[in-house]
């Protein structure tokens, strides 16, 4: 399979990329790692007239600290998340979760920004971004704006990213000492999307939950934060009854599409199981 014809552009700066998006309008698509877009083009699900390859823009790559915030360039690839000493120390959930994404070759090309901006409910970084309270820096013709991950994902292939904007940075507050975290992803095989997935970040004060975030992967048209599950735990002791209440709240938030990974009932039940496992694992890591 060969993609349809297109014109190729390789800007060197974000400013050039934004200018190209402005000139070419909705006929243009940004090319990040290409491991979603190129297969879609081969299958004619996408037929952009112009591809703007943002792989040659150095400012979009790399991981750095800005005070207590970790700043991840949107074009940083998954394998660089896994091996980043900064992330291992400050946001270890991302290192652990990235190992569950795709396979070694794909992780050399697939980027965190592409995974987020694509808006595929099967992608893992949307739910992860929500639980780590990430925000996204987007650059358009009128400059930069910052939007929270929570609320960014509107539906399948729909996000707050405008057609004339480039995602530049993912900004993540460093985990407070003692933060527990987990990403539980049920998948049929290496490289598959989640049948159901759950990301959790949790902190404790004594035996009570003092902070909690719960978000789900691939069981709704977009990643969902389950505030009702958080409410079932926040300010309360972490015990089986409260975990069960959170699991039921998460199940109620599920709206999966039936496919080869399972029917609606199965996916919903598995989402509940992933929530339970993620909560227990994250809590066991709290200090």
């Amino acid at each position, binding site marked *: 399979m060969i993609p349809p014809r297109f014109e190729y552009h390789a800007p060197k700066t974000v400013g050039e990329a934004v200018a190209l998006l402005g000139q070419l309008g909705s006929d243009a698509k940004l090319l990040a790692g290409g491991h979603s877009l190129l297969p879609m083009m081969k299958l004619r699900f996408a037929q952009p007239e112009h591809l703007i390859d943002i792989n040659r823009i150095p400012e979009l790559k790399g991981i750095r600290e800005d005070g207590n915030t970790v700043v991840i360039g949107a074009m940083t690839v998954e394998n660089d998340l896994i091996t980043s000493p900064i992330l291992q120390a400050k946001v270890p959930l991302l290192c652990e979760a990235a190992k569950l994404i*795709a396979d070694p070759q794909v992780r050399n090309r697939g980027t965190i920004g592409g995974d987020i901006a694509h808006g595929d409910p099967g992608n893992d970084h949307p739910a992860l971004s929500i639980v780590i309270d990430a925000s996204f820096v987007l650059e358009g013709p009128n400059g930069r704006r910052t939007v929270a991950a929570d609320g960014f994902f509107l539906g399948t292939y729909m996000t707050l990213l405008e057609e004339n904007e480039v995602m530049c940075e993912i900004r993540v507050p460093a985990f407070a000492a003692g933060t527990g975290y987990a990403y539980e992803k049920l998948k049929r095989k290496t490289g598959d999307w989640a049948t159901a997935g759950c990301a959790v970040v949790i902190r404790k004060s004594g035996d009570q939950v003092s902070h909690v975030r719960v978000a789900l992967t691939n069981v709704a048209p977009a990643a969902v934060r389950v505030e009702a599950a958080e409410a079932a735990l926040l300010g309360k002791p972490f015990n089986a009854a409260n975990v069960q209440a959170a699991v039921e709240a998460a199940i109620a938030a599920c709206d999966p599409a039936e496919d080869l990974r399972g029917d609606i009932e199965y996916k919903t039940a598995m989402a509940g199981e992933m929530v339970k496992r993620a909560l227990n694992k994250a809590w066991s890591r709290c200090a």
Partner: protein
Amino acid sequence: MSKKLVTVSVNGKKEEKAVEPRTLLIHFLREELNLTGAHIGCETSHCGACTVDIDGQSVKSCTHLAVQCDGSEVLTVEGLANKGVLHAVQEGFYKEHGLQCGFCTPGMLMRAYRFLQENPNPSEDEIRHGMAGNLCRCTGYQNIVKAVQYAAKKLQEPVAA
């Protein structure tokens, strides 16, 4: 649609060609350079039969544009053996029967070649994870793991004087 000039080193040889932007690296290698070692399998970045090395990283060449390789160094399975002497990973697949039909083998070899540089002394579990982007439908993987273990051992042997 205008063609783009691509300058790329393939197995140490400089190649310069004008390509359509939509030309995938796998087609560039197979059809422009007649390097048919890398295979076209699933075409959707799952099977790994098209795996090559680009600038020291394993990449699935069915999901990479040739124009994106401008200025890069590409290594394919044709570049593994040195003056007729098999590379340790090739020898390992041969000695340990790491193939049956052989379709996946070029990708397996290229991934094993790079993986053993990333992790020269891997456990069996690390081999299975490191090779997880390559599918084989014949062997059941057992002998592929053995082949990689063979190569790991061989690569760590002191070079004979």
